[in-house]
């Protein structure tokens, strides 16, 4: 790993993003912005190739940035689809502030992903403050840029933003306390489990685990869909990958009762998420609850992976990326169908198959993938998570997860069936948004038919 190049890769999105904050937006400049962002991502991809496959250079005594194969695969997916979702922000929203925030968010998540393994090592072995502080910088960068992304003039948007900021403040303080406790020399055996608990809880708050989930459905309602799609895909995914990596290493030192609590919270998350999603009429809120239930599956998956001592979190990475691609793409389609930013209800979708067949078919593909029906990638994610649970002999958890998968199928079906029934369908505002979604649909089908593609991306 060439750390100079990684450093450049991390800084580059911010460098490209910051000037945009000062520029005022004019409608004709969409193409310019597109070229600007394409240039940046082309650079990032070239840098990523050199960083991953070039010669090894370290900045300090111990590596500052390090990635495992699963994270490398995730990084490729994040960069490629991050680009597609930024394209959506430019097409749908066109706000320079949002593009700037999106680029900064990318920087933050790159920091988080690259430093996750050195961070874990520094907590357990070397106790290096520099390594421990870098992820916090990443997290805070993500928070600040999320505020930019979530900013909205609507009342519900502002309310959601306040909720989000409060949650993030609490979670950041939890994470900082957790890290600081690792550096104490007083009664280590007693404090280490507590420190881990603080860390895990802090991250869980940010991914929307029950009972820290209140902000998520509101943000989902109040924020423009293209922004929430981007932040779910890049922000949420990188947080979860970070969580997965350090949880596996810290599993042995944490107290059993804390794991039990996490399992219970995960169960609550699954049940509250899926059942609330089933009862929703407004689609954006339904997706918000779906993200909450995903947090539950992920916590269960992380625990299963930790129990099996999987150092490389392939399963969680695969699950979160496939699920988030589907959810983000659905947000984009919904956003392009909405009139004056009023969220669509289930009944608004009636007749979409007749009026907008391509949008309807794409929407069905994403919902089917989310529901885990073969041959889409969601199915493999489901098989993966269930087989891990079975391998750990936590059969009952497998059954509970399978039950909530079924609930997910139920509300996905509700949507798909609405598309096919008769009614007056909303108009598609901008056909350009569909282009990137083709790529996500093809990617989901490809991954479903040939899951090893993900491992190939990881260089295995």
């Amino acid at each position, binding site marked *: 790993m060439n750390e100079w190049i990684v450093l450049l890769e991390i800084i580059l999105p911010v460098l490209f993003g910051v000037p945009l904050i000062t520029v005022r937006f004019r409608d004709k400049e969409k193409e310019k912005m597109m070229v600007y962002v394409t240039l940046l991502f082309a650079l990032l991809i070239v840098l990523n190739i050199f960083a991953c496959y070039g010669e090894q250079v370290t900045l300090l005594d111990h590596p500052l940035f390090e990635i495992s194969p699963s994270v490398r695969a995730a990084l490729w997916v994040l960069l490629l689809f991050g680009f597609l979702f930024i394209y959506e922000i430019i097409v749908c929203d066109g706000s320079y502030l949002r593009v700037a925030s999106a680029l900064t968010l990318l920087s933050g998540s790159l920091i988080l992903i690259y430093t996750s393994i050195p961070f874990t090592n520094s907590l357990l072995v070397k106790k290096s403050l520099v390594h421990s502080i870098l992820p916090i910088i990443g997290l805070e960068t993500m928070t600040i840029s999320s505020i930019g992304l979530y900013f909205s003039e609507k009342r519900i948007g502002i309310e959601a933003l306040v909720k989000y900021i409060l949650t993030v403040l609490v979670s950041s303080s939890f994470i900082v306390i957790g890290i600081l406790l690792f550096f104490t020399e007083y009664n280590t055996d007693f404090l280490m489990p507590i420190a881990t608990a603080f860390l895990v809880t802090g991250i869980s708050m940010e991914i929307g685990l029950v009972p820290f989930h209140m902000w998520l459905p509101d943000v989902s309602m109040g924020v423009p869909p293209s922004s929430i799609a981007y932040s779910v895909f890049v922000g949420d995914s990188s947080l979860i990958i970070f969580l997965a990596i350090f949880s596996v290493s810290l599993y042995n030192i944490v107290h059993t009762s804390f794991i039990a609590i996490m399992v219970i919270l995960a169960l609550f998350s699954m049940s509250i998420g899926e059942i609330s999603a089933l009862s929703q009429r407004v689609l954006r809120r339904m997706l918000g609850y779906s993200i909450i239930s995903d947090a539950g599956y992920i916590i269960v998956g992380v625990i299963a992976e930790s129990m099996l001592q*999987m150092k490389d979190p*392939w399963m969680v990475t695969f699950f979160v990326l496939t699920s988030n691609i589907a959810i983000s793409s659905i947000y984009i389609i919904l956003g392009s169908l909405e009139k004056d930013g009023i969220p669509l209800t289930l009944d608004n979708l009636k007749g979409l198959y007749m009026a907008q067949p391509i949008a309807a078919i794409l929407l069905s593909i994403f919902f*089917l993938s989310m529901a885990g*029906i*073969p*041959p889409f990638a969601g*199915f*493999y994610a*489901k*098989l*993966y998570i*269930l*087989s*891990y*649970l*079975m*391998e750990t002999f936590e*059969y009952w958890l*497998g*059954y509970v997860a*399978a*039950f909530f*998968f*079924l609930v997910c*199928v*139920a509300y996905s*079906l509700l949507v798909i*069936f609405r598309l*096919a*029934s008769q009614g007056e369908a909303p108009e598609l505002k901008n056909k350009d948004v569909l282009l990137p979604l083709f790529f996500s649909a093809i990617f989901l089908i490809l991954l479903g038919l*040939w*899951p*090893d593609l993900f*491992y190939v991306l990881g260089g*295995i």
Partner: protein
Amino acid sequence: MIPVIFLATILPSLLSILVFIARKRKTQTIIALISILASYTIISAVYITNGKAREFLGYYSEKLTFYKIPIVDYVDGVSFLMITATMLVYVAIIIYSFSEIRERYTSYTILILLLYTSLIGVFVSETLPIFYIYWEFMLIPSTLLILWWGGEKRYRSSIKFFLFTHASSLLMLLGIATLAANGIVLVSQLSECRDINMLYIMSLFAIALLTKQGIFPLHVWLPDAHSEAPTPISSILSGILIETGGYAFYRIILETGALQLLYVTAILGLLSALYGGILAFKENDVKRIAAYSSISHAGYIITGLSLGGLGSFYALVGGLFHLLSHAVSKGLFFLVSGTVYHLFGTKDIRKMGLLMKNARYTSFFGLISSLSLAGVPLLACFPGEFMIIVGGVQRRYLEISLILVGVLIISAAYALRFWLKIFWHPPEILIKALPRETDLYRIMGMAVLAVAIVVIGIFFTLIIDYLLIPFL
């Protein structure tokens, strides 16, 4: 080596692109027919040249930490039997649909071709996760077919269909995940494994398979879905889709020898044979009669296969043979029900009658399918039912055989009631005018299956000798 079986499986789906390009209905129909026949020809060539053929396609997932999932396809006598049944029903319904389906014919043809791929995939997959993929993918086209071309209550019945079958399949997925976690991903590995609780895993499988098969008390979705679907799709659902349950029962559950489970399934099979038969006799809706009759015959098949697992060779052969004979007979029965529904404009059997006078072909096909379901010799269903009953006697389960004979009488009763009420007796409720004979395509579609029923009924020994006995 070229993966021939896999190519034959996906060929109809690939050719569906041509259906999309072709504009004329006739061309689309011909393309669909050619693709099905081509796929069948390839598979029969493989079967005839090799007998039991197996091919390894690569790995579905090689890099997983615990287990590799090799993709293995195979064709042997039993899967070839099922593929033959599928081909026969498909040829009939494609010709029949030419008249029946008036709207969105292109999407319809594409969807039935996708469904064909998934059905054949179920019959040829040896890898359990791949089997599950085909098994679940089957749901998407079939649900859409019910939803878009179905009757008045299609919305409700398609949701019911999807949710019931998917919920049960999730249990199967749990079973597959458990097996995979223990390193078993192929059907052929099932008999080798002794160190895990197979009975428990097979119970999960059984719930899924029996739900698909429509066995009492897991049959709730079946009457609605089968009666609300458009006629050709009812034929596929009743003829082939539910048979996949029986086929998988033979492949997976009988392979493991979970004996205690087989007692339960035999009893459930008996119950549903009785239940379906009695309800079919009491029902007045033509399509629902056919649907309840499916429940009854599905019960017959499961009883036969369970007795086969308990050691009766005759019952096993009978159960497997009945998969084929029931597919063609029920396919025709549904097509006849759909035709009379189309002619009279109502599904109520009391408002029908005397059709024999005007519609000789339809009534002849109706008679053949009814007699076949009633178990008359020289028609398709007789050998299978007979062998299942003999199998019961052979293993000294006399009471089971006795009940099955009773079910046979009930089947004869509802099948003949069906035929007599529609074609022979005057209507109970006065109708304005007697409809005329149906059109040529519908007749041709029905004729394919009628010929198949007679041929299978006469040459059943050939099928049993060459397709079943060498592989059991």
